[in-house]
């Protein structure tokens, strides 16, 4: 990060290469759409670039990056909600097929998709990005206790999802 602030292009390239896959994974689990996640990733880097002087040396880097990423995601969500509210569906939606839809293969993204956004982002930061409770608390501007509570509720909910899937199967 110091190299990035000094204008060192090799350090900047290394930082982008190191952080971007984590951010892309985070955005993919948050939005469920790869294309949207790539757009958000690029927007995030533009914001990080604009705000690169705001990282104080000695402070942890991931909470700083994720706080900006979270800000970009919320902004993106508001923007897309505004656009969706003005859109009109021109063609009627196709009828759903009569057969039983196959149950999607369960992976991390489909599992966390059922969680509310605040719990989903906490679980993603903890499990995808490997951040500590303190780092997640900093990134989400909340207390460590609140992060623990959200994580605990998320795990309870995920267990109940697995139970209902097992019941269906």
């Amino acid at each position, binding site marked *: 990060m110091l190299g990035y*602030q*000094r*204008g060192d*292009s090799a350090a*900047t*390239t290394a930082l*982008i*290469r190191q952080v*971007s*896959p984590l951010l*892309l*994974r985070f955005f*993919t*689990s948050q939005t469920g759409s790869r294309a949207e996640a*790539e757009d958000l*990733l*690029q927007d995030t*880097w*533009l914001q990080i*670039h604009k*705000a*690169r*002087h*705001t990282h*104080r*040396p000695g*402070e*942890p880097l*991931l*909470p*700083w*990056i994720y*706080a*900006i990423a979270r*800000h970009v995601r919320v902004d993106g969500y508001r923007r897309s909600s505004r656009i969706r509210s003005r859109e009109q569906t021109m063609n009627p939606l196709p009828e759903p097929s009569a057969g039983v839809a196959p149950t999607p293969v*369960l*992976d991390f*993204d489909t*599992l966390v998709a059922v969680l509310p956004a605040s719990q989903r982002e906490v679980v993603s930061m*903890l*499990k*995808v990005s*490997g951040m*500590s*409770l303190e780092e997640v*608390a*900093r*990134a989400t*501007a*909340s*207390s460590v206790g609140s992060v*623990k*509570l959200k*994580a*605990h509720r998320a*795990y*309870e909910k995920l*267990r109940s999802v*697995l139970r209902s899937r*097992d019941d269906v199967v």
Partner: protein
Amino acid sequence: MSCDDLDRLRAESPLSGSSDWPEEARRHLESCARCARLQALLDGPSPVDFPESLQSRIEAAILPALRPVSPLPGVWRVAAALLLGAILVIAAANWRLGVEGWDARSGVQFAVDFSLLGISGVALSNLLAQQMMPGSRYRAAVWVWLAAPLVALLAAVASLYGDQFKPDYVAWALNCLKIGTACAACSAPLFWLALRRGFSLHPIAQGAAAGLLAGLVGVTVLEIYCPYLDRFHIFVSHIGAAVIAALAGAAFGWIKNKT
């Protein structure tokens, strides 16, 4: 150990894998298929492929505009700059207006009022300096930072001051409100100078906090200047100036957020 206990363990120690867990947790994982499945899904989120073209696009957007930047100064340097600005405005305003209020107060009133104003000023300056960096350490919700100084001041004034009716109450009230808001308005540009390089994730809350700090400058000037020690006068005209400044700061943050 129950499934719920295991959820609690996961939440308490998110970084440790199931291999680091206590014996009874591992026994539960072996006996409970659902918990084991959940743990496997949480332990191994599949890595995402990161295409070289995306890396190139990001580099193309950033590297041409890459210039050296100086990082933000430390929290205490920014906080000291804010406090220096506040002291300058207070000194200049009271040099012009006088110090009758200082002389009129008893020792206890003086000590409590100025201690509260000092502590609130230092705490708010520190909060604002910290919040310039996204992802800074969380202390408490911003509304707590905003409400605490005002509630403490209101409680102190209610308990330390009595009722002193004056026939020209309204004229005194308007005069003090005018002076308080004018001092807040004078300190606002100085605070903006100190805070302008920050990246504001919550512009409304941060605007309100900066406005409140400017408002506390106005309150301090009035506490030194105004000899009218009626509690309702202090509520409305002194502390009221701080509330107006905080609302103006929040409005400024809202406009900044919209644009």
